C-alpha cells in the first residue's frame, strides 16, 4: 500500500433562502409565521440601532463604533438558534446577537461610548464582554465549552469571530483544544470578506474558512450568512450536536460588511468599485422581507408599525444611555480586585483629592 488515502472529507455549504426570497422547501426549518416575522423584526431592530449609533457618533455622542450593517442575518439566525442557558462569547461586531441575548441596548451604547458599565450585564444574561484583541475570544469559548462539559450543565458556548481572526494563533489553539476535549461549543465565523483593509484572499489561501475544521477533526460547514434561515438551521444543528455531547462545530457564515470597519475607518480607500453595491443586492433583510411578502405574511402597514416600534425602542435606549450619570472617578479603581489593596487605596485617594480640589 504505497500511496494511500488516509483522510477524506468534504466541506458543505448550506443555503435555504435565496436573494429573491425563495426558499428550499426540503431544507426549510419548521418555523411558524410568528417566528419568521420575529427573525425579520430582529434584523430590522439591528439595522435601526446600528444606524442610530453611526448618527450619534457623527454628533459626538458616541465613541468609535463598528457597524454591523449587512451582517444582521448571521446574528439573528445564531441568536434565535440558541437555548436559554447557552453562553455567548462575542468578538466586537456582535451587537445584534448580544442585544437578542438580553444585553440591554443602552449598555451596548454605553460601552462603545467609553463607559465600562456597558459591560456589566444584568443578572442571568450569559454573555462575555466584547473582546477587542482579535481572536482572543475563541479561547474563552473553548474554556466555557469545557466548563459546561465538566459541570454537565445543559448549555452550550457559542463564540463569534471575524474572518481576520482566523489567522491568529488563538483561533487554532482554541479549536484544537475544543475538539480534543469534545467541549460543548459552537464556533461561528462572521466572514464579512474584510479585516479592515485586508481582503479574504490575503488572509488565507484556502477556498473556504469552513474547511479549516479539517485541521481539528471537527465538523465544519459554510452557510450563506445573508440567509437567516440557513444560519439558523446550521447553528441549531451544531448546538444540538454539542448539547448531545458530540463535540464542537465550526460554522462559516459568508456575509459582507456593508459599512466601514469602524467610524474611524474609510473603506472607500481600499474596496474595489462596485463591491458594496453588489452586496447591497444581497441584503439579508430585504431577502427575508421578500419571502414574507411573497407568503402573505408581511405588508406595508406591518412594516410601518415595525419601523415605528424600532425607532421608539432605539430612542428610549439612547435616552437610557444618555441619562446614565457619569462614572465616579473612583470607578477606575474599584473593580480592579475583589478587595482594594493598600496601594490602590492610596492612589484612589490621590485622585480624589485632585478631583475635589
Amino acid at each position, binding site marked *: 500500500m504505497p500511496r494511500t488515502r488516509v483522510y477524506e472529507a468534504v466541506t458543505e455549504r448550506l443555503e435555504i433562502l435565496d436573494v429573491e426570497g425563495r426558499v428550499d422547501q426540503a431544507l426549510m426549518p419548521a418555523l411558524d409565521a410568528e417566528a419568521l416575522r420575529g427573525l425579520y423584526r430582529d434584523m430590522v431592530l439591528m439595522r435601526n440601532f446600528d444606524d442610530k449609533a453611526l448618527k450619534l457618533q457623527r454628533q459626538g455622542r458616541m465613541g468609535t463604533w463598528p457597524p454591523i450593517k449587512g451582517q444582521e442575518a448571521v446574528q439573528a439566525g445564531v441568536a434565535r438558534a440558541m437555548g436559554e442557558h447557552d*453562553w455567548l*462569547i462575542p468578538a466586537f461586531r456582535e451587537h445584534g446577537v448580544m442585544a437578542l441575548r438580553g444585553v440591554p441596548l443602552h449598555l451596548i451604547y454605553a460601552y462603545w461610548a467609553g463607559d*465600562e*458599565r456597558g*459591560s*456589566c*450585564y444584568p443578572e442571568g444574561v450569559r454573555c*462575555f*464582554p466584547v*473582546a477587542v*484583541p482579535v481572536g*482572543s475570544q*475563541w*479561547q*474563552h*469559548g*473553548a*474554556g*466555557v*465549552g*469545557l*466548563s*459546561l462539559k*465538566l*459541570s454537565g450543565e445543559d448549555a452550550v*458556548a457559542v463564540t463569534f469571530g471575524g474572518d481576520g481572526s482566523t489567522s491568529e*494563533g*488563538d483561533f487554532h*489553539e*482554541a479549536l*484544537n*483544544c475544543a475538539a*480534543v*476535549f469534545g467541549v460543548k461549543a459552537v464556533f461561528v465565523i462572521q466572514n464579512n470578506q474584510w479585516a479592515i483593509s485586508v481582503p479574504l484572499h490575503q488572509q488565507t489561501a484556502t477556498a473556504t474558512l469552513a474547511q479549516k475544521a479539517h485541521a481539528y477533526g471537527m465538523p465544519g460547514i459554510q452557510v450563506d450568512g445573508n440567509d437567516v434561515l440557513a444560519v439558523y438551521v446550521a447553528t441549531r444543528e451544531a448546538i444540538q450536536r454539542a448539547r448531545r455531547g458530540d463535540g464542537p462545530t465550526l460554522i462559516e457564515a459568508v456575509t459582507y460588511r456593508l459599512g466601514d470597519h469602524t467610524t474611524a475607518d474609510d473603506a472607500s480607500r481600499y474596496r474595489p468599485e462596485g463591491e458594496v453595491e453588489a452586496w447591497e443586492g444581497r441584503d439579508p433583510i430585504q431577502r427575508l422581507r421578500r419571502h414574507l411578502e411573497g407568503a402573505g405574511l408581511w405588508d406595508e402597514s406591518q412594516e410601518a408599525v415595525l419601523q415605528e416600534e424600532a425607532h421608539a425602542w432605539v430612542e428610549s435606549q439612547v435616552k437610557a444611555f444618555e441619562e446614565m450619570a457619569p462614572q465616579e472617578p473612583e*470607578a477606575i479603581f474599584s*473593580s*480592579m*480586585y*475583589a478587595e482594594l*489593596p*493598600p*496601594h490602590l487605596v492610596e492612589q484612589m485617594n490621590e485622585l480624589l483629592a485632585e478631583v475635589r480640589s
Partner: protein
Amino acid sequence: MSARAAGGRALHAVPESTTDKLTIAQAVRDAMAGEMERDERVLVLGEDVGVDGGVFRATEGLIERFGPQRVIDTPLAESSIIGMSIGLAATGFRPIAEIQFMGFVYPAVNQLFAHAARLRNRTRGNLSVPMVVRMPYGGGIHPPEHHSESYEAMFLNTPGIKVVVPSNPYDAKGLLTAAIRDPDPVLFMEPKRIYRAFREPVPRDGYTVPIGKAAIAREGEDVSLIAWGAMVRVCLDAAEVLTRSDVAAEVVDLRSLNPLDRETVLASVAKTGRAVVVHEAPRTAGFGAEIAAQIGEHALLQLEAPVRRVAGFDTVFPLARSEQYYLPSRERVIDAVQRVLSY
C-alpha cells in the same frame, strides 16, 4: 535569635503532631490536593500535569486521586491553557493552570494581561477570574535555554494579577492555598532551584499565609536584605556569613510582590538605614527598581547609603556553563552589603 523565629511562620505555629516534613515541591502538591478535596470546583490543568505528574512532580498522584476530569493534560498550547482557564473560571470553576517553565509563559501573556487581569474591571465586577497560574521560575539548575528565566517584572507593571513567591515549604503551602481561595487571578512563582533543597514541617491541614504580607526571615539592625523566592536563601546565607564581621543583616522575604507589603519594607529600612535588594531577573527595570524607588520616595532621610541592587545582568540568561557568572551569589550580596556599610 534563630534565622526563622521572627519570620511569618511564628505567627502560624502549629502543634508538631499534625505536621509532615515536606519539600517545597511537596508542599505545593499538598496545597493543591487539600484544596481539591475541599472544593470540587478546583481543577488542575497544563502540560504533563496528569499521568506524568508534572515535569517537577508537583502534581504527582493528583490524577490518580481526582481523575482526568479534574487533572487535565492539555495540548501543547500555553495560550489555550490560560484562555480556557479564563472561560472555566468565569463560569464557576477554580482552575490551577500550570505553565511548565516561566520561560514559556510568553505565548500566554495576551490571555493573562489582556483578559485574566482585566475581566473583573472590564465588567465592573460582573465576571471574574478566580484562577491560579503556577510556574517554576529562576536559575540554578543548569537546564537548556529558556528554562531559567524570571519574568516577574512584566507582571508587576500589569495591574490585575497578584504575584506571590514562596521561599520555603510552609509559605509554599499557605500562599498557594490562599491563592486558590483568592477571588482574583494569582501568579504563583515556584523557585525551582529549591524545590527539593530542604524539608520543613508543614501542617497537614489547610491554612493560608495571607497574600500581601512580607515576612522578616531574619532580624538584624545593620542592613536590610530584601528578596523573594530562591534569593531569600542566598540572603540568609549571606547574613550568616556577615555575622563573622559583626554585621547583623535583616532579611525581608517579600513573599507577595503584588500587593507589595511596603510597610514591612519601610519599617526594616527605618531600623537599618541601609538596603540591598536581590533578584535574579535582569537589573534594569527589574522589580528591584521599584523597591529602590519606593524606599527612596518614603525613606530618603533615613537612608545612610544608596539602595543597592544585586541582580541578574542585562543579558540573556546564559546557558548552563556560564550560569555561575550570571546568578546573584552569596558573595555578591556580601559585597553589596559591605559597600552600603562603607558608604
